[in-house]
């Protein structure tokens, strides 16, 4: 059951070959069996099974929306009514949201069952899932390595087949990088495609929710439910939402694939490069042509990102002050002391580091040199893509420079950690859609991701390109040996 594609699972459910309660129960037991992965922060069987029973009731009555009865795991950044939403942080360790995020709400409306809340880097700040207050997640392919982050719990649970599908969020690579490390498909839609309402904000101008699944087809199925304009999010874009599933199958004969020189340069692991080049050859066989392109400002992406994202974060995280909800320090002498102790105890090191960087960058006297300059760079980076897309239809390259690294290997070196997102960050800065799909394994059997980047609101082209690859290859069907059975 756990290897079935979403479409098949959904079909089994509506044709009553299996009930939602059975499916949900099945995956809940798998989560328990694979508890060592630490992929979930919250699992609430009573809650999930109640939803499953409701789905079964709807199916009986002939009410059959797209994902009726299908269990979906949510990154613990999405607010879920009546279930903890911690964002991987001590400061929200007791927070139960009184409302559902739009993404959660739309899935609920369509009959999906909340399977649980997946582990993540604290406030989505991290590339290894090691900054979580709830401890690191283990990569199902090699338990000594990280699953990537920040949506590490979601990627690991899909890879380990303990969740049929999951949601994630991506601010600088947080869907695509863990998808690459865990050998699954992770899609970051164009900025504004999926509502951010109810998604705990890290860096508002970069954050975007999306699916983490085993295939592009599964991703399209989820997107059909979660994408589209939301009046509660002023940055969500008001335009016709495509049928992501219907657009999967287009012919890619003549597709022009741009290969940025900057994505194949220094720092790229040779095994990763080899696998990516092989995948590109596969595309050539499918009728695509490869074109060398230039993204001249690529080296500015990481510094630009690490000014803008922390700046926004320093303001977004100001609300966690111990006054209205969440963690509050127990002993304090006055208001300032309460603030200081609450935030000192409630936030982890990486979050504090970024709050400090952001606060500094926005301070009087530094604003022009940092924040404003970074905004100008962001424009340049976006223009690089605009020019590149005059020559090509999609851009491809590795998702990450290396495969999953050992737990603890980079925790003391934030810069090395930040460089993990060197190929993904620019996509967020430019607001573009991007996907990571499994493209092969390295010598140690660790997955390697191919990244496909599309034009602004060219989301369906990206999924189409990913799907065509997955129709002729089986990398996305490979599962980690420990969890096959």
């Amino acid at each position, binding site marked *: 059951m756990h290897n079935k594609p979403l479409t098949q699972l959904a079909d089994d459910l509506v044709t009553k070959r299996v009930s939602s309660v059975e499916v949900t129960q099945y995956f809940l037991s798998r989560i328990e069996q694979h508890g060592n992965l630490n992929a979930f922060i919250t699992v609430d069987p009573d809650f999930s099974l109640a939803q499953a029973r409701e789905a079964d009731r709807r199916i009986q009555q002939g009410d059959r929306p797209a994902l009726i009865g299908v269990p979906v795991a949510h990154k613990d950044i*999405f*607010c879920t009514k009546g279930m903890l*939403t911690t*964002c991987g942080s001590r400061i*929200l360790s007791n*927070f139960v*949201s*009184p*409302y559902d*995020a739009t993404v959660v709400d739309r899935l609920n409306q369509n009959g999906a069952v909340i399977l649980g809340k997946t582990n993540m880097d604290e406030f989505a700040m991290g590339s290894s899932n090691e900054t979580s207050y709830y401890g690191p997640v283990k990569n199902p392919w090699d338990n000594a390595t990280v699953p990537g982050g920040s949506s590490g719990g979601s990627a690991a649970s899909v890879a380990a087949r303990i969740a049929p599908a999951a949601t994630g969020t991506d601010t600088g690579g947080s869907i695509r990088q863990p998808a690459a490390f865990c050998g699954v498909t992770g899609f970051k839609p164009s900025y504004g495609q999926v509502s*951010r*309402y*109810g*998604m*705990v*904000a890290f*860096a*508002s*101008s970069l954050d975007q929710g999306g699916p983490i699944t085993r295939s592009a087809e599964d991703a399209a199925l989820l997107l059909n439910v979660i994408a589209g304009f939301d*009046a*509660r*999010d*002023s*940055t969500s874009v008001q335009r016709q939402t495509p049928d992501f599933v219907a657009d999967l199958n287009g012919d890619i004969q003549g597709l022009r694939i741009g290969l940025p020189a900057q994505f194949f340069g220094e720092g790229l692991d040779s095994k990763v490069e080899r696998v990516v080049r092989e995948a590109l050859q596969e595309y050539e066989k499918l009728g695509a042509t490869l074109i060398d392109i230039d993204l001249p400002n690529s080296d500015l992406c990481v510094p630009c990102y690490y000014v803008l994202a922390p*700046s*926004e974060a*320093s*303001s977004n*995280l*100001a*609300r966690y*002050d111990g*006054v*209205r*909800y969440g963690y509050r320090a127990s002993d304090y002498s006055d*208001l300032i002391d309460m*603030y200081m102790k609450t935030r000192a105890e409630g936030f982890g090191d990486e979050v504090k580091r970024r709050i400090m960087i952001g*606060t500094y960058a*926005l*301070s*009087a006297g530094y*604003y022009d040199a940092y*924040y404003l300059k970074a905004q100008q760079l962001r424009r340049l980076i976006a223009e690089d893509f605009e020019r590149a897309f005059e020559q090509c239809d999609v851009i491809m390259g590795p998702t990450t420079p290396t495969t999953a690294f050992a737990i603890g290997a980079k925790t003391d070196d934030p810069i090395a950690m930040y460089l993990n997102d060197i190929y993904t960050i620019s996509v967020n800065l430019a607001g573009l859609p991007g996907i990571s799909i499994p493209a092969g394994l390295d010598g140690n059997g660790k997955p390697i991701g191919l990244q496909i980047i599309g034009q602004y609101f060219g989301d369906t082209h990206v999924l189409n390109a990913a799907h065509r690859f997955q129709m002729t290859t089986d990398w996305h069907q490979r599962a980690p040996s420990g969890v096959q059975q």
Partner: protein
Amino acid sequence: MNWEPVIGLEVHVQLLTSSKIFSGASTAFGADANTQACAVDIALPGVLPVMNEQVARMAVKFGLAVDAKINRRSVFARKNYFYPDLPKGYQISQYELPIVGEGRLTIDTDGGEKTIGITRAHLEEDAGKSLHEDFHGMTGIDLNRAGTPLIEIVSEPDMRSAKEAVAYLKKLHTLVRYLGICDGNMQEGSFRCDANVSVRPVGQQELGTRTEMKNINSFRFIERAIEYEIERQIDVLEDGGTVVQETRLYDPDKDETRPMRTKEEAHDYRYFPDPDLPPLELDDTLIEATRQTLPELPDTKQQRFMTQYALSGEDAAQLTVSKELADYFEAAASATKGDAKTVANWIAGDLSGYLNKENKEITASPVDAQQLALLIDRIHDNTISGKIAKEVFEAMWHGEGSADDIIDNKGLKQITDTGAIETIIDEVLARSAPQIEQYKNGQTKVFGYFVGQVMQATQGKANPQQVNEILKRKLDA
């Protein structure tokens, strides 16, 4: 040395929208604490602001009324600081690009008309309230007000006395109520003022160091706070000291200002454009449509009252202080056969007196414009004298009926029968030989005595004009 005060004002005007600036929660005043604060207002994780369009239209309305530049594109910015009644840890405001740019407002001063520059007016959200009483050493937070829309109107430092500052504020207060964008209720904080005050030697161009006084909520306190602050700064300077740039608090009980925080303690607000809100774009259609909704403004109305009703500038100014008062006047003036000046006098006199005494707004007057017009009609057609009319008005105020009912019931109708008046005059003259003697000897002041006697005999109901005529005729015969 002679000192010149320099004053600039920042006025926070709460906009009269039914819902908040970035959420759908109600803005009604006085609800139980925290019952009008939704997920967005209390800044739950994940919530996002959505701009209330009504707010932009109100701000544009204000901008047009002060002849200001309306910025087609304005940007929301976050003003970051920690305070328990500021749920997000930042206030959404506008910083570099406000919705309303440079404008102006004309005030009347002792030296004639004066134009006060308006630097800008920007949109922002109000914070909640911290409640320090009734919580046993703790602080209570009420977030009902959080997210209430405000425009902050910043003036140029163009005022030179506390009196000018108050004139500007009153003018602004009148204007925002005319526009229907603010209820002007200062007690409830709908209209609040920060004053920036400095002094400099007369003739000096450079501005002195200023202090800021926050959240003063009555015209009287503003005048006193500014006056106190001017005096204080002059004293400091004349004693050889320097004024410290700081925020000061005005204490109305002690009638003094005292330091709140200095420049060094001032916040670095780390303003930056709010990534949750796209820039606010206004098109010409919206601006023109808003222009069409502008009511007649106080200055225009005042001019019209002077020409249309032949009123003095002072009368016209007084009647146009609020739109409701002006409407009342016009309704009464058009309904009565009497003249507009009489209507103006009644409004400024008895009506205002009663309203003030009972602390009522004109809209709550128990005597409406039609009823006042009828009363004035009765003076006009000599049914009653002006003096009796005051008695009738009082009865009307207390709900005893219409002017006619009261005149009938109380038998207040004026005596206009010449024969009847002559009879009474003859009786008075018959017992007033010494006074007649005095009058004949040229002490014409004694004429008033005869009038008084006649009025007493008729309980004030004799037509005064007829009494005068007949008395004169008989005495001068």
